[in-house]
């Protein structure tokens, strides 16, 4: 809020928030909390294209969802990730903290969104989105009752997530779904079920991020029954994927409840994926898992869905210390699967695991090269693990490199060229 005179309001809100934090159930909104909301929301409602709506430094308690719908060219700007806090711990209504829809050229930067009832920041059906220096988290740490997503652009085009931090999400911390052209860089995901997730999305670069202490570090999924399908052309490079060993805390029924605890990078059913230059260390189940949708044992009713990962190129990664503590997710099938893997392969499980479920009529074209001493296994899950193989020889090949994603975002330089 650009107007001055909010300092006293801010101070009284901070005091109220401190008092409120001691209770169990969500307390009623502090007197004045809705006043802060009202002023900020009214500014967002009145914002014209090009407007910068500034949120002052301080901890601001909000009791409802901030919204931006159908208004392009708006920037919502705080004084910095650690200086401007939007605190939703006394939220009474609305699922999200901040919800943006059908609003192109939206930028949000320099603030924290915390303790929302549902998703922290949801952006849908919008183009040219920049999310910079934004933190979303749940202050009680990993918990089943935390909101599903931290930073959550869905059905968007040209999305930049830069310098973000996401923690505690009961689904995914940094998630981009059903979108085209995405860059997630220089960000940190810690203590989520899925740290970074690219789902049903085409042309994504995920690089120079840290994913640690999640159930699964970086997931690249293509799932059925969603309006946008055929996720492809995803590059995962130069990331630190370290000790993702948080026991899966996703609520039953969530898809990510199936992700085994201790997963570094997982590719499910996605085509054209290039994974390179990553440091992948101490992930208890697998450094890199490449699997078909069939490992979920869910029935596929969607005729147009392709459940197989194809043209996956894994090269120049440094993978170490993993596979020694395999553990299932919170879903029953996932526990069963990891038990079966332990039985079939022994521990430590391989650094790079392929479920071995291939399309019936074509080669999956999985290529592995220059991954140091990383051990590989084909689990032959299609035949109930009957003939597992530790031989990486058949997969020593190369695929053509994928092109860097170039975002259509005013003033943004494209991501760095891949190291060769």
């Amino acid at each position, binding site marked *: 809020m650009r107007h001055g005179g909010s300092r006293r309001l801010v101070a009284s809100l901070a005091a109220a928030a401190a008092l409120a934090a001691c209770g169990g159930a969500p307390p*009623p*909104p502090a007197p004045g909390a*809705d006043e802060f*909301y*009202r*002023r900020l*929301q*009214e500014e967002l*409602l*009145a914002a014209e294209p090009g407007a910068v709506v500034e949120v002052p430094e301080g901890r601001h308690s909000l*009791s*409802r*969802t901030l*919204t*931006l*719908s*159908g208004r392009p060219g708006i920037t919502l700007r705080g004084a910095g990730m650690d200086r401007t806090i939007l605190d939703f711990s006394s*939220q*009474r*209504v*609305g*699922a999200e903290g901040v919800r943006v829809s*059908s609003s192109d050229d939206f930028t949000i930067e320099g603030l924290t969104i915390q303790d929302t*009832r*549902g*998703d922290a920041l949801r952006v849908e059906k919008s183009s040219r989105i920049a999310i910079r220096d934004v933190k979303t988290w749940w202050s009680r740490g990993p918990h089943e009752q935390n*909101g*599903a997503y931290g930073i959550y652009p869905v059905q968007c085009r040209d999305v930049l997530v830069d310098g973000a931090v996401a923690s505690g999400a*009961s*689904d995914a911390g940094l998630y981009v779904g059903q979108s085209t052209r995405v860059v997630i860089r220089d960000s940190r995901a810690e203590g989520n079920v899925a740290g970074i997730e690219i789902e049903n999305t085409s042309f994504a670069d995920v690089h120079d991020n840290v994913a640690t202490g999640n159930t699964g570090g970086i997931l690249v999924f293509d799932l059925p*029954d*969603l*309006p946008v399908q055929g996720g492809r052309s995803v590059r995962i490079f130069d990331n630190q994927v370290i000790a993702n060993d948080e026991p899966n805390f996703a*609520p*039953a*029924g*969530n898809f990510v409840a199936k992700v085994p605890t201790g997963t570094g990078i997982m590719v499910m059913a996605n085509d054209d994926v290039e994974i390179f230059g990553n440091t992948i260390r101490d992930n208890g189940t697998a450094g890199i898992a490449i699997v*078909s949708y*069939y*490992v979920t*044992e*869910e*029935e*596929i009713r969607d005729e147009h869905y392709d*459940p197989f990962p194809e043209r996956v190129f894994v090269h120049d990664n440094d993978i170490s210390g993993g596979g020694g503590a395999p553990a299932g997710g919170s879903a029953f099938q996932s526990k069963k699967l990891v038990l079966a893997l332990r039985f079939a392969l022994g521990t430590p499980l391989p650094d790079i695991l392929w479920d071995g*479920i291939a399309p*019936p*009529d074509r080669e999956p074209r999985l290529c592995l090269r220059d991954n140091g001493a990383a051990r590989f296994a084909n689990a032959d*899950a*299609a*035949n*109930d693990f009957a003939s597992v193989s530790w031989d990486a020889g058949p997969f020593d090949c190369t695929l053509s490199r994928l092109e860097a994603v170039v975002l259509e975002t005013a003033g943004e330089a494209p991501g760095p060229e891949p190291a060769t």
Partner: protein
Amino acid sequence: MKTRPAARAGRGALSLLPWLVAGACAPPGPVPHLAEPWPERLGDWRIFRDGSLEPSPGVLVYELNTALFSDYAAKLRTVWMPEGVSAAWRDEGPLAFPAGTVLSKTFWYPVEGDGSVRIDAASGGLGRRRVETRLLVRGRDGWVALPYLWNAEQSEAFLRPAGGLEMLRWSDGAGGRGELAYLVPNRDQCRSCHDAAGEPGSLRPIGTTAANLNRDVGAAPQLAAWRRRGFLEDGPDPADAPRLPVWDDPATGSTADRARAYLEVQCAHCHGPARPADASGLLLGFDESRPRALGICKPPVAAGRGSGGRLHDVVPGRPEESILYFRMQSREPDVMMPELGRDLRHEEGLALIRRWIDELEGDGCEAAGGGSRARAVARLSDG
């Protein structure tokens, strides 16, 4: 929009001119506003006589067969159109209203001496607490949603684009008491339900469909009163027109019909074809007939925590296993349905939905799950 012959010279917005220039001499009826700035005070619209809820001359109070549940608030609905224009009939969806139309909905409760609001439709000896009046105005550039909040003195309501959050103490007249967080939606949230599919940024009314308006008020059909007032130009005789059942009046339909009318009104503005929640595959319009679209044995798409661990939207004979029922009885913001506009459970509505699911043919759904992976692969290669 149709124009009555007498007013042919003054079609649409032009016909408002005499009203605008008349200024202070205008008759004591509503004052049309077709563009920003919108009046700060509800009183400036002159829909009601000074500070009261008594409609001004020319303003018609109307009722719906089945209405959206809003935390047991009572609702007073009015419609007004400028002289010389009227709405056109539509078999489906809202009537086609002309420019200048003002629809109002005032949310109020009977209130006890200690200030707590009654949620049991009590009457007799109680005051009234007006919370908000929402206007849907067909302006020059389409529909506009305007939330007005009543002041503590109950003398005037003020435009609040950001809506409001009122903490109310409630009592049910039978010893039950509690607190509710009453949300007045902000203008973006108005849009989240009133969004007009296919036209970015534009809104539409929801409740004012011919079928939902087609009821008797007193002994006479409501639609006839609209025609008499000049608010409705054409359309069939009310006796031959579709009529939405009244959800809590068994004389108007079977359990299934009334449950479907209830779901239509609570859900179908989002859960309908080309509506915001169509990606869920759950389509709850009154005319929907495909069992799967109605959620029967349909697995959820992306319900997340909203599934409550349940496997299907509607499980015949088993309301407790049905996600639809689970979400309708939830009070958690990220689980409950509808997403907005209620804090309390609608116990009577839930009882109807429960009965509907209980009485659906069949018992349970076939277990999901595709057998072994190898068989699944084989099935795919066969196909």
